[in-house]
């Protein structure tokens, strides 16, 4: 019963889609029935077409995300602790940079990097970087002062304070930033793949639409949605295991 209460709504939605499309109430050419879409996914997995696109897309998204994590977390920690006054100095430029629309950045990146893997990964990197950096910075700069005083009283140096107190205390916010970043990574990747790529899920979606293979298009859309939810679920599980997430719930299917 718990299952029904949680997922009943989604089941109803999918059955409604199936039913309306089968009976022709909504145009089955524009909205092929859900089972047909699933069958298309299955067929494309068997031929290996789907596997190639999924692998490439995931690779790009994750590489971009990891690079952004590698840079964003230390950068945020530094700006939030040791270089607070430097942050005041760079606040406006950073904000302008973070406001730059990734779609538009793509046009500039193409100038430098051509249309290979590099601009796509860079776009993902750029998009993820800001939520991760700002979240980490917020977390690091709002650590309870008493914790820091206590740490200092016990004789921790500034490096020890950073790794033993600031980092753990900021981890819930860092993690929130990471989760936001991971969400954005898939998001922007699909956009980048639509603008200039010959592989990946974004390309698959646009290409099937342009060649009017709507079953394939829906298959790609469903897989993109599924991957997004899956990544969010995975990072949530990791977060629950390794970070303190007292006040944070998993908001996708499950809670409520």
């Amino acid at each position, binding site marked *: 019963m718990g299952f029904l209460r949680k997922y009943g*709504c989604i089941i109803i939605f999918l059955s409604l889609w199936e039913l309306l499309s089968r009976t022709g109430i909504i145009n089955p050419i524009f909205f092929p029935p859900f089972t047909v879409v699933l069958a298309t996914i299955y067929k494309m997995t068997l031929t290996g077409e789907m596997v190639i696109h999924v692998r490439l897309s995931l690779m790009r998204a994750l590489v971009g995300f990891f690079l952004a994590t590698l840079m964003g977390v230390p950068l945020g920690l530094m700006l939030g602790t040791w270089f607070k006054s430097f*942050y005041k100095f760079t606040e406006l*430029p950073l904000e302008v940079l*973070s406001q730059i629309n990734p779609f538009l950045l793509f*046009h500039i990146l193409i100038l430098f990097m051509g249309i290979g893997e590099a601009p796509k990964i860079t776009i993902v990197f750029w998009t993820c970087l800001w939520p991760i950096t700002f979240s980490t910075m917020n977390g690091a700069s709002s650590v309870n002062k008493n914790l820091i005083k206590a740490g200092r009283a016990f004789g921790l140096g500034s490096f020890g304070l950073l790794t033993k107190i600031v980092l753990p205390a900021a981890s819930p916010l860092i993690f929130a930033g990471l989760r936001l970043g991971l969400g954005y990574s898939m998001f922007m990747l699909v956009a980048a793949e639509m603008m200039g790529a010959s592989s990946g899920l974004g390309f698959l979606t646009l290409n099937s639409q342009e060649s009017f293979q709507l079953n394939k298009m829906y298959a790609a*859309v469903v897989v993109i949605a599924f991957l997004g939810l899956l990544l969010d679920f995975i990072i949530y599980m990791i977060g629950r295991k390794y970070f303190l997430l007292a006040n944070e719930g998993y*908001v996708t299917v499950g809670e409520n």
Partner: protein
Amino acid sequence: MAEIGTVGPTIGGALTPQIGSNKADAAVLSFNQRVMSWYGIIAFLLLWQIAPYLGLTDGRFIPPLSEIVADAGKLIANGEFFVHVASSCQRVLIGLFLAVVAAIPFGILLSGFFPRLTRFLNPLLIILGNINPFALFPLFILLFGVGEMAKLAIIFWSSLFPILNFTIYGVMHVDPILIKAARSMGAGKANIFWKVVIPAALPSIFTGFKMGATVAFLFLIAAEMLSANAGLGYLVHNASLNNYIPRIYVGVLGIAILGMGFTMLINQVEKLLLSYKDEVKVT
């Protein structure tokens, strides 16, 4: 990306710098700090201007600032710039307005009066909100063609779910103590709704609105790049196709400034509207 319950800034989110102010010369300090961030941007712009001359960057790809400003001046002088800004603003504002009009009353009604139904619908709404609107682009084009309708629909759809989900979250997570207190003081249902639930949910609704606005700007550009003959996204796309590099930067900076201005405006409105709410530090 409806990230309910996530604190911390989004891409377009406002930063909350902490200003130390228990000193006697707090005013001087805070003034200096405010100027400080302007030093930063001036240094940044100066670096941009002189980097090509120093050979740090390639002037063809990152033109010096003066060239960009000159091109912007040209566009402003012949009035073209305002045409693009106006048509972009119009799209964002209409799309966002429709989303607000649809999402906020619907969300409040749904979660305020049918909490069980809301709990039932919530997973679906969150999944729909998590579906990449970019992946739905082809679908919108199939349904609405490539005209103005499709762009408005994209902006509407992408900003609808953050607003709706945050509205529902806000109404569902009103502190029960507040409601109990109001009830024990004899407030009726309507009174509780208007005087307790709505004010308590408003901050969350505002967060949703801000997120929706950010997303709306994002998708405006995307929509204008796919098909348009005016708008800042079109300006950049067209400049890029014609390999007219300074103009790309004009468009990019124009949109960044427009987005920032809009965020600042919303923040001001929020301050006015939510004056009853204490400034809460993100912890």
